[in-house]
């Protein structure tokens, strides 16, 4: 078991023949992910990385039986690619692209409500199920197999957390990089739910940051429904109000979306919150050994 992706996932790459698509598709193949082809409009019928290229996602799904797609399409066209994948029946869409206009994501997010599909991202490092499938841009070697799931808005901070978890002797089931944009397909709560339902996952690391209320909603859900320990960290305690900190969604707007406010509600809801990002692994080891 695992969530979202596993060794049976049949993955296509949208934006396959571009620089990013090519590089990361190669890395994914090397990791052992079943990359079955890709889509680049206008290049259908050719081969790339020994795999077929299609003009449309619909054709790719029909010919390869793909059920997962990863998107490296430039920002101006990425929302369209997300909707194309959803329309073609892709079950899990992972959108890596950073910089998609908010208006496009408003349209795409609402379009997806009419489809049976899960969107991860955009502006995210992707999803990795340790030693089964990497559908993302993360360094695969960091994610050794184990019992802890990760949900995070950030890229390198996810790798940091995974590395600490592995070094604490625990290892990873699935790590979900949900993305740092104001609008994302799978907010914190929904990603946490998936890991709570995964029998292999014994503990969950939840990494958030300033801006929005996804962490607060997740914390309230965990208090009501949580069955596994959750260790939490929120980045941006020292971020000034009203400034965007790298991620488009990382901006303090009011008093409820500060790191302090989020950590307070997470603590109230029984989450093991650490103030230092260096203590994520240590805290999880403590919590798990105390079970």
């Amino acid at each position, binding site marked *: 078991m695992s969530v979202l992706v596993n060794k049976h996932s049949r993955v296509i790459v949208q934006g396959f023949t571009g620089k990013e698509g090519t590089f990361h598709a190669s*890395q994914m193949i090397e990791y052992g992910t079943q990359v079955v082809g890709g889509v680049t409009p206008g290049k259908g019928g050719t081969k790339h990385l020994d795999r077929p290229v299609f003009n449309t996602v619909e054709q790719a799904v029909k010919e390869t039986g793909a059920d997962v797609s990863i998107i490296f399409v430039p920002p101006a066209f990425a929302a369209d690619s997300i909707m194309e994948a959803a329309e073609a029946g892709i079950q899990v869409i992972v959108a890596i692209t950073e910089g998609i206009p*908010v208006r496009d994501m408003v349209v795409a997010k609402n379009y997806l409500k009419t489809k049976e599909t899960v969107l991860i991202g955009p502006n995210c490092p992707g999803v990795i199920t340790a030693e089964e499938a990497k559908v993302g841009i993360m360094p695969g070697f960091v994610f050794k197999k184990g019992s802890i799931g990760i949900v995070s808005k950030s890229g390198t901070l996810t790798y*940091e957390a995974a590395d600490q978890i592995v070094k604490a002797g625990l290892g990873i089931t699935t790590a979900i990089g949900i993305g740092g944009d104001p609008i994302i397909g799978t907010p914190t709560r929904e990603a946490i739910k998936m890991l709570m339902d995964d029998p292999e996952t014994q503990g969950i690391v939840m990494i958030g*940051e300033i801006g929005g209320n996804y962490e607060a909603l997740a914390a309230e859900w965990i208090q009501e429904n949580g069955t596994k320990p959750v260790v939490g960290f929120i*980045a941006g305690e*020292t971020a000034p109000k009203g400034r965007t900190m790298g991620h*488009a969604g990382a901006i303090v707007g009011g008093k409820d979306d500060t790191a302090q406010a989020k950590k307070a509600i997470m603590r109230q809801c029984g989450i093991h919150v650490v103030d*230092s990002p*260096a203590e994520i692994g240590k805290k999880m080891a403590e919590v798990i050994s105390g079970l």
Partner: protein
Amino acid sequence: MNLHEYQGKEILSTFGVGIQRGIVASTPEEAVEAARKLHEQTGTNWWVVKAQIHAGGRGKGGGVKLAKSLEEVKEKASQIIGMNLVTPQTPREGKKVHQVLIAEDVYYPGPGPTKEIYMSVLLNRQIGKFMMMYSPQGGMDIEEVAESHPDQIFTEIVEPSTGLLDFQARRIAFNLGMQGQAFKEMVRFVHALYKAFVSIDASLFEINPVLKTSDDRIIAVDAKVVLDDNGLIRHPEYTALRDIREEDPTEVEAREAGLNFVKLDGNVGCMVNGAGLAMATMDIIKLYGGNPANFLDVGGTADAARVEKAFRIILKDPNVKAILINIFGGIVRCDRVAQGIVDAYKNVGDIPVPIIVRLQGTNAEEAKKILDESGLKVHSVIALQEAAEKVRELVG
């Protein structure tokens, strides 16, 4: 990207949004000329001189003044242009005023009373849709209204597939107590405002106040317009509206070099790959007794050229007593990053503050060796905890 009031109003008016008309001026002489011209165009005999800075609450700080003659226009403009305007939304030291908007008087007497309204258009992040937020309690700080009269704040969620519907526009006008001609004008105003918002890829409109004039026109008297930076790919013409005088010069320089940088007021500079890890690094600096001097995401590659640029930007700040470089090398190998740091260090020359380099990930041990053997004043560590303790040792 933030726009000035005068820029925002110009854009709004091209979408048929009623505005308080005005002309921007950079000197007292230009201000008088603008006032004269505005009199010809609109018949106004009084003028409002409004400081153009990227911050609200300008009236409270003395940045908005009424002038009842051309002499007064000159006098008020002289006072405001060049002043350091301090408002509740500016930094403590205030913001220098470079331009004023000479605007028509819209509070003239007429058949009915005037009424000030608050209206904004923004993203509701939780449900992923745009919404209009409005209140009949206009002209005051909306956060105060939210505290004192929460029942006086209304929202209208807009379905992306349909856009703002007529009944929604009517509901807004009814809730605002509009009647007769003012009602019709308000419905038209609301539609035009929403159309402008989506057409220009805005991320925030805040119009406070929207005014119902004594003769039942509906106009935007102020306009805070923020554009979605990611939307600028569709509107290259708006990038020219950026006023870099409003920004920290180091931030401007960093942006031009492709670095994501925010200036802060602490004593430990930092250079990190990835925005989340960069914020976490700032937090750990604080936890261990320092204060972050900046946010800086050096990006995925962290090559010598970028590291060098980042060094130079961080070192412009005289408050910086130490620099923490925190790189998680995944796809990019740590030994390459380490070599880049060594090369960049040598190019910059003598760096007067201690540097802590934390490299973790692929080839972290080799990277540490490169740094240790470089002969540079660099403390090389691998675990984040060690880096934090080093910060405490140096500045805590």
